[in-house]
């Protein structure tokens, strides 16, 4: 639940650098965000949350960008806005991406509780509750299933049974 705060336009090349794209996700994830914070991958803990400014995930369609964050144990992303393609990818992998205009009020190291369905973020460190956009119901159903693949699995099973 610890917040790791980054700025605007965090791009997919810093999330999933091209030269490591051929490696399995567990190897590639070690390089996630290293261009901006060399200690990130080694220090992040399961349950932590990445917070950023505008246009998080700009750039490539590479799904390894949200996959690396998920692999490192990140449970939610909070940003003032997301690049559209990245937003779809994150939700498709079952990683909630929450749009919050007040994301810049969150400080690095703050402890957060994010409720993507209710559309609110509790900042346990500052005592603030921040309003955010709720993730649409048809997408939350997929996120709850664990992402699009699990969602499709259900659909395939339904068709074949």
């Amino acid at each position, binding site marked *: 639940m610890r917040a790791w705060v980054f700025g605007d336009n965090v791009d997919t090349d810093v999330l999933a650098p091209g030269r490591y794209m051929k490696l399995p996700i567990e190897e590639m994830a070690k390089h996630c965000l290293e261009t901006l914070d060399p200690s990130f991958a080694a220090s992040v803990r399961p349950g932590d949350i990445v917070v950023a400014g505008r246009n998080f995930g700009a750039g490539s369609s590479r799904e390894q960008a949200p996959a690396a964050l998920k692999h490192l144990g990140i449970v939610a992303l909070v940003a003032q806005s997301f690049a559209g393609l990245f937003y779809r990818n994150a939700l498709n992998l079952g990683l909630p991406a929450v749009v919050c205009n007040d994301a810049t009020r969150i400080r690095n190291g703050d402890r957060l509780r994010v409720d993507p369905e209710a559309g609110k973020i509790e900042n346990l460190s500052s005592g603030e509750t921040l309003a955010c956009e709720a993730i649409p119901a048809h997408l939350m159903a997929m996120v709850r299933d664990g992402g699009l*693949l699990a969602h499709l699995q259900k659909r395939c099973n339904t068709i074949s049974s």
Partner: protein
Amino acid sequence: MNQTLAQKLVARAAGRSSVTPGEIVTCRVDLAMMHDSSGPRRVKPMLEQLRAKVWDPSKVVVITDHYLPAYDDESRKIIRIARQWTREAGIESFYDAQGICHIVLPERGHLRPGMFAVGGDSHSPTGGAFAAYMFGIGATEMVGVLVTGEIWLKVPHTIAMEFDGAFGDGVAAKDVMLFLIGRFGMDGGQYQAVEYRGDAIRKLSMQERMTLCNMTAELGGQVGLIASDSVTRDFLKTEIETWQGDADAPLLAHHRFNANELAPQVAAPHSPANARSVDQYKDVCIDLAYIGACTGAKLEDLRMAARVLRGRKSAVKLLVAPASLRDQQSAEREGTLQVLLDAGAELLANSCGMCAGFGERLLPENAVAISTTARNFKGRMGAASAQVYLASPYTVAASAVAGRVCDPREMLA
């Protein structure tokens, strides 16, 4: 109700007479394109997990371009999976080492106005140059398309970018996009549809239009669209349907520019949004020039570079990676390629190469490069300490000759 081009294309794919911006619809996919990096190596295991088959192999196109030339065990394995899987899945439209997917796809006649298409790459909006609704998706979402033949979509608003007049000599589509990204930012497109229009746009060739629509990705739009016309028809060499928006369809924004006033643009490290007129970066010394990528090394891009380089020598390392094999062959036949080689260019493979930072050739530590590619994010093309300036093929060629950022119009006169 008056509809934009984007609404008309989405409505057709959704089986509706009209759609409204903001509503969520499910669309039938006419074509799904994948490359070796986000394609077979990622979708094959997921399809196996689902025990599912491709809904319609005739609607899938696979093109290898990222891990070419393969240079180690991992890249060879990725390419091998692409070759095997396309055969197993019965996909006949497989183009192996023929060039960059966004160029090969229309070059081989897979795009038509009115189509609804997805691509496993963020630069898939290139297809919008043909009045096709085409956008990039990730590998898991591609599996969804491959299994169901459908995808959901929030119907976009349209932002119109209108250019009146005509672009000056030495000013290219790349300059238009760098200017727009500099002006509106990398999220200026708001994941909506960006439609390019106006006299100056209609005068552009198909390959220049492809550069515009391609870099809608850097502008943050979901798709970049241009209405189909006689230029589209002549490129496709076949009769086409005319697809255009209604004149008075409501727009999210309508920006008008005088094309005649646009100067060559250069984007400084580490964002395409750092674009300014070339004179703002005039004194920057460079030690490498790269002419490559889907937005910077098509036949017409090579011709632009050759116009500057004819009879001149590059003062710095000059690398040229033609965007497709066919374009390279055409450039060879007409003599364009020889002009580049005579100027000192080193020829690289017809693949994404250095642009995506995937290949063996990467920018070394502290390199200062000027490049015809679409993105100059920190570390993308190699070392994080490398500095990359983005510019048109004209400007990159002129800068190679000068050894510093240079206005190409000085050399075209």
